[in-house]
């Protein structure tokens, strides 16, 4: 019988990215170009007490150390980042946390492990002054790549109720295996 080592050598599972944003291999990836072909810039979040999210898949069990967001030039109020399963049931959440650090990547420490599968990562914000490193999006492109939205969702609720995507920007955020970005 072949050994475990044999099977490990034969496997072709691509290791999980250290940090998964919507533009990582595990999510939309290069097709983010279809959403908006420009560099992300600092943009206000236009959905007070609302949330936006992206789906991602994991090929292997992965241990994460936090949930991260790329803050823009103005920080304000509270944010909440959460991971949902494919049925939009919340698995982990940061709860409401003060947005901190203009023009920096804020990593909110939260240890959790996810098995292979499909997940959603959601960012909710309690105000429209907060800015994030975001890409401009068109609604149709956002919908075609599975971006999700919920208008009354702060802090991130236990169940996410997906609505038609109407926000014109999409922030940079996601789970990370790192402690600083």
């Amino acid at each position, binding site marked *: 019988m072949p050994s475990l080592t044999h099977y490990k050598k034969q496997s072709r599972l691509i290791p999980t990215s250290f940090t998964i944003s919507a533009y990582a291999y595990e999510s939309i990836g290069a097709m983010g170009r279809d959403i908006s072909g420009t*560099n992300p810039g600092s943009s206000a979040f236009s959905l007070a007490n609302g949330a936006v999210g992206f789906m991602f898949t994991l090929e292997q069990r992965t241990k994460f150390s936090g949930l991260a967001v790329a803050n823009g030039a103005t920080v304000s109020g509270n944010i909440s980042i959460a991971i949902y399963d494919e049925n939009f049931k919340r698995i982990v959440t940061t709860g409401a946390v003060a947005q901190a650090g203009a023009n920096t990547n804020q990593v909110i420490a939260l240890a959790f492990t996810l098995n292979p599968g499909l997940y959603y990562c959601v960012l909710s914000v309690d105000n429209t002054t907060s800015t994030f490193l975001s890409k401009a999006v068109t609604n149709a492109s956002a919908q075609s790549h599975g971006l999700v939205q919920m208008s009354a969702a702060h802090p991130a609720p236990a169940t996410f109720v997906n609505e038609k995507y109407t926000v014109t920007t999409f922030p940079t955020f996601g789970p990370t295996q790192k402690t600083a970005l």
Partner: protein
Amino acid sequence: MRYRPEPMISGKSIRLGIGGALISSQGIPTTSVAVSSAGGANRATFIPIKIPCAGVIKQVWWRNGATIAGNIDCGVYDVLTDGSKLPGARLGSSGSTPQGTANEIQYADITDINIKFPKTVYVAIVSNSNTATLFSSFMGTQYAKFMDIVGQASAFPLPSTAAATAAALTSSSFFTDFGVSFRPAV
């Protein structure tokens, strides 16, 4: 069937590097950029790449720009196991190597690196000349940090143990056209 790794993996690979993020922001993004505009001389750039199966890294390579100057060091680093996911021990490197021919891929033999299982490693590159050019990308410093790219100042030649951090990535342009090869160059 015995799977084999892609013969060459670069920092801008879509599946195995940060190519998805690059393309989503800049399309086909690479151009010849002076070292002075990509962090400056002696500042190393580290990009994580995913090795999907067992294999032996035989060479490192980089894509020279239009102006050749000084020396290059290109290497491969393991990932620290302390939870930081930052680069740690150097697995191999070209050592200080005169930059070769303009606008061509330059290969350097390294001592074989035997990758036993799928894993992530960092590829690193550094030049000791501000006037040298390499093919590079632009996508904004903060966004690059979110894509797990890190930097290290005063890193020529590449150190045996990295001390790279996200904070030490200081430029919006950074080298992306370099990587590893699992077969000898032809």
